[in-house]
C-alpha cells in the first residue's frame, strides 16, 4: 500500500452535483417563481455544467492517481466521536473509486445533456434535473467514502432518488406503484446492509474499509460469515439479482434517461462495487462465493429468457440489464473481481447507449414503447440506428466491440478459476446466446423490416444524438482497456490489460491459471454463440413477434410467475395483516386511544384532587409520613 495523499479533489467532485441540486431544486424555482415555470434548457444547462465540471475534476483525480497509486483522501469531519465509537467522514479516492467516479460523472454528463432534449416537452423540468443531480451526489458519496456507514448513506440516497425519479410522472398510478415496489424491495436488501454493519462493527470496532481489511480475524468467522451473507443480500437488492430482481423491470416506468443512468449504468452496479470493495471479507467464505456465482449465473439465464418475450422496448433492456448484472456477479463469485469491474464499465457504456437509443426511438415515436408497433425505423432515425447497432454489437460480444472483451474474460475466468467449472460456464454461455437472441430481436422489431403502424419517425435533436455518438464510440473501443493476456502474449507484446494494471493496487487480479480450454478457444466459442444467436434470432423474428415455442413463451411471459409467488408469499399476507390492523387495532385501540387519554386524565384528576385539598394538617401528615419513609429507607440501606 502506498501513502495517502491529502487532496480536496474528492470533496469538489462530490459537492458540485450537490450544488447543482440546490440550484435546480431551490434557487432556480424560487427565481422563476414556481417549479412549473422553470425552463428545461436552463435547468438542464445548470445540471449538465455542474456534472461536466465534476467530470473534469474526476479526470484530474485520475491523472493524479496515475503518477502514484496512493489514494487521495480528504478527512471532512468526525461525525460521531464517543469514546470507542468513532465515525469520521473521510473521502477516499483510490483507483477503484476513480474508475467509478469517471463512469458516474462522464456518463452522467452525457445523460444530463441528453435529458435536455428528451425532456424538452416537459413543464417544470428543474425538478427532474434536481433529482438527477442529487442522485449523482449520492452515488458519488457511495463510491467516495471510505466508511461503510457513509456508503450506506449514499446507498440509501441513490435508492431515494431512484424512487423519486421512477415516480417522476407521479400522476400516473402505475408509476407510483412501480416506484413503491422498487423502494420496498430495496429496503428488504438494505436491512441486510444495516445488520451487516452492526455485526462488522461489533467484531472489528470500526466501519472504515482500510481498518476492516486488517480486522478479518479468523476467530470471528461465524459472525463474519453472517455479515458477509447479509451484505451479499443487500447487494442482490440494489443490483437486482435473484431473488430481489423484481423491482428493476418495473422501474422502467421512469423517464428513459433515468433508466439509462440509474437502472443501467450506475446505481445497479453499486452492489458490484460494494462486493469488490469488501472482497477481502467475501474471500474468506468459499461456499458463499459459490452461491454468489450461481446466483449470478442463474440470474443471467433467467432474465435472458424473460427478455426474449418482452414487447416493451425498455423492458427488454431492463431484463437485459438484470442478465448482465448476473454476469458480473458470476465473475465476482469465481473471484475475478477485476473482470467484474471491467464488465461493469463496458456495460455502463453499451447499456447506457442502448437505453438512450431506445429513448431516442421512443422520443421519435411520440412516446410509443411497444416494439410490435414499430419497425422499419432505420431509415427514419439513421443516427440512432447506427449507434444502436454499435451498442448491440457490444452487448452481443462481436469482436473488437467492448462487450467482446469483458464477456469473454468472464467466461474464460469462470472456466479456469477453481470455483468455476463447466456447469457455470454452460450457464454463462447459454445466457450469452440468449443475449444475442433478444438483442437482435429488438433490432429486428424496431429498426428493420416493414413499418407497421406508420409510427412517427423523426430523428432526435443534436443534444440527444451527441451523447449517443460519444457512447457509441466508447462502447466500440472501450474494450481495448482490457486486451486479453493471451492475445498480447501470442503477439509477443507486453501485457496490454491496462484496466488490470490500473486496478491491481486496489483489487487483486485473479490468479492466472491454465484451464481446459485456452482463452482463444473460449473467445471463439463466445463469438460463435453470439453470431449463432443473432442469426437464429433474425431468422425467427423476421416474420413474427413472439417466440415460436408456445409452452416456453407462456412461462417466459409470465416471468416464471415470480411476481405471483412473491405476491402470494409476502404481499398478500402483509395486506391481510394490514387489514386486520385496520379492523381490530385501528378501530378497537387507536381510535379510542384519544378518548382513553382524556377520560383517564379526568379520572386521575378527580382522584388526585383529594391530595390538593388545602388542608394544612393533611399536608403535614404527608410530610411526616414521607420523612419517616425516608428515614426507614436510609436505615435499611445502611444495614443491608
Amino acid at each position, binding site marked *: 500500500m502506498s501513502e495517502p495523499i491529502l487532496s480536496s479533489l474528492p470533496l469538489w467532485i462530490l459537492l458540485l452535483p450537490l450544488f447543482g441540486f440546490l440550484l435546480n431544486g431551490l434557487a432556480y424555482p424560487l427565481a422563476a417563481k414556481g417549479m412549473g415555470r422553470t425552463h428545461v434548457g436552463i435547468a438542464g444547462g445548470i445540471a449538465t455544467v455542474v456534472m461536466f465540471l465534476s467530470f473534469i475534476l474526476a479526470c484530474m483525480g485520475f491523472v493524479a492517481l496515475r503518477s502514484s497509486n496512493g489514494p487521495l483522501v480528504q478527512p471532512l469531519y468526525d461525525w460521531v466521536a464517543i469514546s470507542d465509537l468513532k465515525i469520521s467522514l473521510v473521502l477516499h479516492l483510490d483507483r477503484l473509486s476513480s474508475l467509478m467516479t469517471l463512469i458516474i460523472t462522464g456518463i452522467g454528463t452525457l445523460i444530463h445533456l441528453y435529458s435536455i432534449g428528451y425532456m424538452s416537452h416537459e413543464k417544470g423540468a428543474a425538478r427532474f434535473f434536481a433529482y438527477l443531480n442529487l442522485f449523482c451526489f449520492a452515488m458519488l458519496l457511495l463510491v467516495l467514502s471510505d466508511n461503510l456507514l457513509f456508503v450506506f448513506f449514499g446507498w440509501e440516497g441513490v435508492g431515494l432518488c431512484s424512487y423519486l425519479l421512477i415516480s417522476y410522472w407521479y400522476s400516473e398510478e402505475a408509476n407510483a406503484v412501480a416506484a413503491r415496489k422498487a423502494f420496498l424491495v430495496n429496503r428488504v436488501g438494505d436491512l441486510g446492509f444495516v445488520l451487516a454493519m452492526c455485526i462488522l462493527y461489533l467484531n472489528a470496532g470500526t466501519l472504515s474499509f482500510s481498518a476492516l481489511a486488517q480486522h478479518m480475524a479468523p476467530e470471528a468467522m461465524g459472525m463474519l460469515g453472517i455479515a458477509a451473507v447479509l451484505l451479499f443480500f443487500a447487494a442482490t437488492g440494489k443490483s437486482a439479482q435473484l431473488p430481489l430482481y423484481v423491482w428493476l423491470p418495473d422501474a422502467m416506468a421512469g423517464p428513459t434517461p433515468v433508466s439509462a443512468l440509474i437502472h443501467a449504468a450506475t446505481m445497479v452496479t453499486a452492489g458490484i462495487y460494494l462486493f469488490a470493495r469488501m472482497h477481502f471479507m467475501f474471500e474468506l467464505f468459499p461456499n458463499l462465493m459459490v452461491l454468489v456465482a450461481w446466483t449470478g449465473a442463474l440470474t443471467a439465464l433467467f432474465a435472458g429468457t424473460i427478455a426474449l418475450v418482452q414487447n416493451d422496448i425498455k423492458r427488454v433492456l431492463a431484463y437485459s440489464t438484470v442478465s448482465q448484472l448476473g454476469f458480473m456477479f458470476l465473475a465476482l463469485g469465481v473471484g475475478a473481481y477485476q473482470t467484474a469491474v471491467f464488465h461493469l464499465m463496458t456495460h455502463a457504456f453499451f447499456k447506457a447507449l442502448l437505453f438512450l437509443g431506445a429513448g431516442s426511438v421512443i422520443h421519435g415515436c411520440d412516446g410509443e414503447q411497444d416494439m410490435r408497433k414499430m419497425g422499419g425505423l432505420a431509415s427514419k432515425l439513421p443516427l440512432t440506428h447506427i449507434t444502436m447497432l454499435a451498442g448491440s454489437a457490444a452487448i452481443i460480444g462481436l469482436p473488437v466491440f467492448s462487450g467482446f472483451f469483458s464477456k469473454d474474460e468472464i467466461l474464460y475466468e469462470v472456466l479456469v478459476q477453481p470455483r468455476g467449472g463447466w456447469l457455470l460456464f454452460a450457464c454463462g454461455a447459454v445466457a450469452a446466446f440468449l443475449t444475442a437472441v433478444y438483442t437482435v430481436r429488438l433490432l429486428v422489431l424496431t429498426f428493420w423490416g416493414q413499418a407497421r403502424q406508420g409510427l412517427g419517425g423523426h430523428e432526435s435533436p443534436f443534444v440527444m444524438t451527441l451523447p449517443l455518438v460519444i457512447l457509441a464510440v466508447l462502447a466500440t473501443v472501450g474494450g481495448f482497456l482490457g486486451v486479453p493476456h493471451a492475445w498480447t502474449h501470442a503477439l509477443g507484446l507486453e501485457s496490454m490489460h491496462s484496466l488490470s494494471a490500473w486496478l491491481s493496487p486496489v483489487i487483486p487480479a485473479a490468479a492466472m491459471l491454465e484451464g481446459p480450454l485456452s482463452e482463444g478457444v473460449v473467445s471463439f466459442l463466445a463469438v460463435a454463440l453470439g453470431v449463432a444467436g443473432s442469426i437464429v434470432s433474425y431468422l425467427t423474428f423476421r416474420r413474427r413477434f413472439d417466440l415460436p415455442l408456445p409452452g416456453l413463451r407462456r412461462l417466459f411471459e409470465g416471468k416464471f410467475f415470480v411476481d405471483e409467488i412473491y405476491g402470494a408469499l409476502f404481499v398478500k399476507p402483509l395486506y391481510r395483516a394490514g387489514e386486520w390492523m385496520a379492523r381490530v387495532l385501528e378501530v378497537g385501540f387507536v381510535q379510542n386511544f384519544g378518548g382513553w387519554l382524556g377520560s383517564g386524565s379526568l379520572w386521575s384528576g378527580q382522584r388526585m384532587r383529594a391530595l390538593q385539598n388545602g388542608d394544612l*394538617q*393533611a399536608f403535614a*401528615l404527608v410530610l*411526616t*409520613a414521607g*420523612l*419517616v419513609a425516608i*428515614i*426507614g429507607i436510609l*436505615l435499611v440501606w445502611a444495614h443491608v
Partner: protein
Amino acid sequence: MVEPVLALLSAIIVVLGIVMTVAKNPITSAFSLVALMLTLAGVYAAIGAHFVAALQAIVYAGAVMVLFVFSIMLLNMNEEKSEINLESWRTYAGFWSVVGLFLGLAYAFFQWAGESHGPRPGPWSISAIKEHGGNVVALSGVLFSEYYIQFEVISLLLLVAMAGALVLAKRKVD
C-alpha cells in the same frame, strides 16, 4: 448514672406531654404546657444550664404561656367533645407516622451515645464554667463577643414582630 431528680422530672414531663396532647379543654392543654415548661426549666437547672433555665421560666412559662391563656380567655372557648376523631384513618396514619419518627430519632440518639463523639469536648466543662464565675458570666462573654451580630438581628426581629402583632390585633377603626 442518672440522678434521681432528673428521672423524676422526666417522668413528669412525659405525663404532662400526654395530657397536653389529648386534653379536651384548651385551657387544660395550656396549663399542662405551662407546667411542662417549668419542669423543663428544672431539668435545665439540674444539668447546670442556669441561664437557659431562667429564660425558660421567665419568657416561656411567664410571658408566652400567659399570652396563650389570655388568648383562649379572649376567644371565649368552652369545653368541647374530643377533637381527635378516632374514626378517621388519618388519626391512625398520623399516630403511626409519629411513632416511626420517634423510633428513628431514638435509634439515632442511641447510635450517638454508642459512638465516640466526633467533635471533641470543648473547654466549657462544669468546673471550667464555675471557675469563670458561673454559667451566666460564661454565656454573656460569648454572646457579646462571638454572637453580637446575631443578637442585634434578633432584637430587630422582636421589634418587627411587635409591630406586626399590634397591627394584626388592632380593631379596625370604623
